């Protein structure tokens, strides 16, 4: 029924087979929308946030998807500015994943601010001394960049492309994409960094506080670096999942291995910097504020030293070691394990920098403050996942996302 919309040279399942899973994921989406409407109409009393947790599950999800969506800006930077032309075979998917991640981040923020009708205040009545203002500016502008990068893909749909104006527009947008990609890399550097900077400047919370360079704490640079290192791993992991679901090879191994290798080396340099930062913080910064390392990981029911091991060793050193070696990178199973560990690693890092910061007692009479999200928070955090799956399904079916698909899967 919709065969006229499907890209040339590729095969897709029947419309019925496509609509059934779409309806299932759509039901999850509706559950999230219901929870979102509850938060908007009844207010933030629908959440389990409290005086200890002004930032909670949503902000973790926000920081995590922004880091995972970093694959879009870094792949664009490598392709358009560094000249890694092979990455043109995966850049479309990186852009789509980035678009999903950033639109999800903005959606979560729109719920989290509690009063979305006043969302524009941050632009009009800007607090120019806040790193979060800079995050809001860069996030909004970078989402515009991702939209601009996604539009040519939509225009390349078989039917839309028949309209001469849209064909020329798509062609021109491709021609100027380097300008947009450079703007995107500039914006990403600052908002990824400022998200880390927000934690690093909390001098009243020694678990997060870091020294730094001029006005920027070390966490500023570590967040940008980690997004560039781990973001491509998420792009590659979602590509692998898409290949498994469709039962097709969609991107050639040399492209995957190139991006995995760059990501692996970025991760290696990042994790060395992260270890140095952790050692300095544990031995100099925290003791200067009256804390020992073990104070941050004991006397509570959840946060043990295991979380540090999981973030730095399992989610950092192990995937980096796999991806920088030829043998690890060339094995599809081993490199997929590395992608999974990397995604877990960066997500744990964001969890620690948002939620553990809030949990650790600061005063001698304080207790650990543990937090459990309400079902409305969980549903609204799953909502972007369902939305992302739906957008990937529709984009994969109707748009030429994978330029190598036809060559790798010749039609019978």
């Amino acid at each position: 029924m919709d065969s006229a919309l499907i890209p040339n040279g590729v095969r897709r399942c029947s419309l019925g087979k496509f609509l059934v899973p779409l309806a299932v994921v759509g039901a999850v989406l509706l559950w999230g929308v219901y929870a979102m409407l509850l938060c908007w109409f009844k207010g933030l009393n629908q959440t389990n946030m409290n005086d200890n947790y002004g930032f909670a599950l949503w902000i973790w999800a926000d920081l995590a998807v922004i880091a995972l969506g970093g694959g879009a800006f870094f792949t664009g930077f490598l392709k358009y500015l560094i000249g890694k032309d092979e990455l043109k075979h995966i850049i479309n998917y990186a852009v789509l994943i980035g678009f999903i991640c950033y639109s999800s981040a903005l959606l979560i923020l729109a719920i989290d601010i509690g009063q979305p009708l006043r969302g524009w205040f941050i632009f009009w009545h800007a607090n120019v001394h806040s790193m979060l203002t800079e995050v809001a500016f860069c996030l909004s502008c970078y989402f515009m960049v991702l939209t601009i990068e996604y539009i040519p893909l939509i225009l390349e749909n078989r039917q839309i492309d028949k309209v001469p104006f849209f064909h020329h527009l798509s062609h021109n947008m491709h021609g100027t994409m380097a300008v947009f990609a450079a703007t995107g890399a500039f914006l990403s550097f600052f908002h990824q960094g400022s998200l880390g900077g927000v934690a690093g400047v909390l001098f009243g919370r020694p678990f997060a506080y870091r020294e730094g360079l001029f006005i920027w704490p070390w966490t500023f640079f570590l967040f940008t670096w980690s997004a560039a290192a781990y973001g491509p791993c998420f792009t590659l992991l979602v590509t692998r999942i898409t290949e498994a679901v469709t039962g097709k090879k969609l991107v050639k191994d040399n492209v995957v291995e190139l991006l995995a290798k760059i990501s692996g080396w970025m991760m290696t340099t990042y994790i060395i910097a992260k270890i140095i930062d952790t050692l300095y913080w544990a031995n100099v910064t925290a003791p200067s504020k009256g804390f020992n390392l073990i104070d941050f990981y004991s006397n509570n029911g959840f946060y043990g030293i295991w979380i540090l091991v999981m973030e730095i060793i399992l989610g950092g050193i192990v995937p980096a070691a796999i991806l920088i070696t030829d043998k690890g990178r060339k094995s599809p199973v081993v490199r997929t394990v590395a992608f999974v560990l990397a995604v877990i690693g960066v997500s744990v890092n964001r969890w620690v920098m948002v939620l553990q910061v809030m949990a650790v007692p600061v005063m001698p009479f304080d207790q650990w403050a543990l937090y459990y999200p309400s079902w409305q928070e969980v549903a609204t955090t799953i909502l972007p996942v369902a939305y992302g799956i739906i957008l990937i399904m529709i984009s994969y079916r109707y748009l030429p996302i994978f330029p190598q698909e036809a060559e790798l899967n010749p039609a019978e």
Partner: protein
Amino acid sequence: MFPFNFEWIWDMSHMVFMGGLWYALIILGIGMTYCIVKAAIDTAKGGDGHGHH
């Protein structure tokens, strides 16, 4: 926020923050305007518009 708003102060923070925002928006605006205008001109010049990207 613009310089003619009552909240505006001519200090470094306002100039850097708001200047950065306008800078990014102007680049995106000019870039998209160029693409749209050129597409309109290309379309007006004729042709089936099905060359290679």
